[in-house]
């Protein structure tokens, strides 16, 4: 196995994912298989090859920094789990 339980727990923490106790063993096994599988990329000769981030090797276009949308906050917040006076509620961060 290329990954162990501690490594997988560390990745899960970085990704902000809580894994249930009964998920962990399976995740270690399947993630290891995926990592082993993609490791075959190391065989490819890629010296001096420019990495490709966009199918047309284009940079993203920019636009002027102007307000183009109207305020639709109430409509958007209908999907929020907890709001009050137009603000999103989260557990207390600062005591």
């Amino acid at each position, binding site marked *: 196995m290329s990954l162990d339980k501690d490594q*997988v727990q560390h990745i899960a923490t970085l990704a902000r994912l809580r894994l249930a106790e009964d998920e962990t063993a399976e995740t270690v096994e399947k993630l290891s298989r995926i990592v082993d599988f*993609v490791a075959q990329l*190391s065989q490819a000769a*890629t010296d001096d090859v420019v990495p*490709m981030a966009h*199918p047309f090797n284009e940079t993203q276009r920019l636009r002027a920094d102007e307000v183009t949308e109207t305020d639709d906050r109430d409509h*958007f917040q209908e999907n929020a789990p907890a709001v009050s006076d137009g603000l999103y509620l989260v*557990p207390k961060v600062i005591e």
Partner: protein
Amino acid sequence: MSQDLHLQTLTQLAAGLENGTFSSVDITKALLDRIDLHNGRLNAFITVTAEQALADAQRADDARASGNAGVLNGLPIVHKDIFCTRDVLTTCGSRMLENFVSPYDATVVKRMAEAGAVMLGKSNMDEFAMGSSNETSYFGPVMNPWNLECSPGGSSGGSAAAVAARLAPAATGTDTGGSIRQPAALTGTVGLKPTYGRVSRYGMIAFASSLDQAGVITRSTADAAMLLGVMAGFDERDSTSINQPVPDYVAGLDKSLKGLRVGIVRQHFDEGLDDNCGVAVKDALALLEAQGAILTEVDLPNLELSVPTYYVVAPAECSSNLSRFDGVRFGHRADDAEDLFDLYCRSRGEGFGAEVKRRIMTGTYVLSAGYYDAYYLKAQQVRQLIADDFRKAFAGVDVIAGPTTPTPAFKLGDKTDDPITMYLNDIYTIGANLAGLPGISVPCGMVDDMPVGLHLVGAHFGEETLLNCAHQYEQRTDWNEACPEDFR
């Protein structure tokens, strides 16, 4: 008359509406009845928007009566549940968005609605489009209309099953690694993935932004051409949308294939391809040749690395895109969180299914300090090599043809134990996504009573050539008219 409306293609329905043979309300009622009758066996829909559909159909009929009919006026469409639809549930196949009612329309949805299309509902899909069998959906798997024990493929499995079972003539889909073309092949339908940037991604819930592209699943190439004409075009709201004129795709369908240069990738017919599928695809190639196409072999030496390349690039982008689901602004939120960290971790842990978590974690790993160069950077370099192979190949050919999938539809549950076996199902389709090329799958035969697809890939913005080739092939076969027995 009304009994066979469900068997008609979009093009045929458009003609009937134009002639006044039937109304959009007639079509909509007939299809809603069929959905009601058959969806229980297929699970192709997550939401059916019956009331809204009937109202929209009436509006379309009124518009036609007053001489204001758009290109798609009164024609039914199903949207994959990855497209945001204003005031309608948009789940992306996930528990995370189980209760998400979109506050806006995706550009694709908006353009079709403005052209007069009538949405029947939202189709089932693999969770966040991550899957090739529709089994990762929080709302349960979709069954293949050709054999209910088989998968319809994925991730646009609900769209493909709905079209194959004649519950709708057309449905939208999205394709990141084959998610339109693979389910189309496995259900005997036509699946079109346009060039990257051809169709706006605005309002299409993001999976891997440098690969995702919207397209359609239909029962004929002409129908796909008609829909692409409406969907395609520049959109200010999508930062990677390409500003290129949209040709009249339907007008280009009737050209002869004489002199068309068709490239064949030899490796695609090596081991891994089911023998009978290989025979069906070779028969299709022979038919293209008989129509005047010139077959030549092309070499794509780096293509064998396309699947591992994809499974670095796509998870990396997904881990970044899905970080927006935090349990704060929308989506699932865990109860009684101790603190903010606990809220994030538990909301995401509960809201995402196993495959989505694996992809997020794979992406997190390949982007993390110490591994970035070995995995992510390396994959981006190999992606460039693969794209280069295609660039060189398209200097000498107009389309590349081969199988869409290695086998016909597999049984539900058959590939769920090993993620790699599932990933390899997209071996012939992923290359087009990595290089940003358009691709189409059209039905080209039956193996053990299950459909097989012919895969055509075109050069950038080569949709006209692609559609022309597929349409001309279709004129000389009737595979796309085959209908599963239980759904006639």
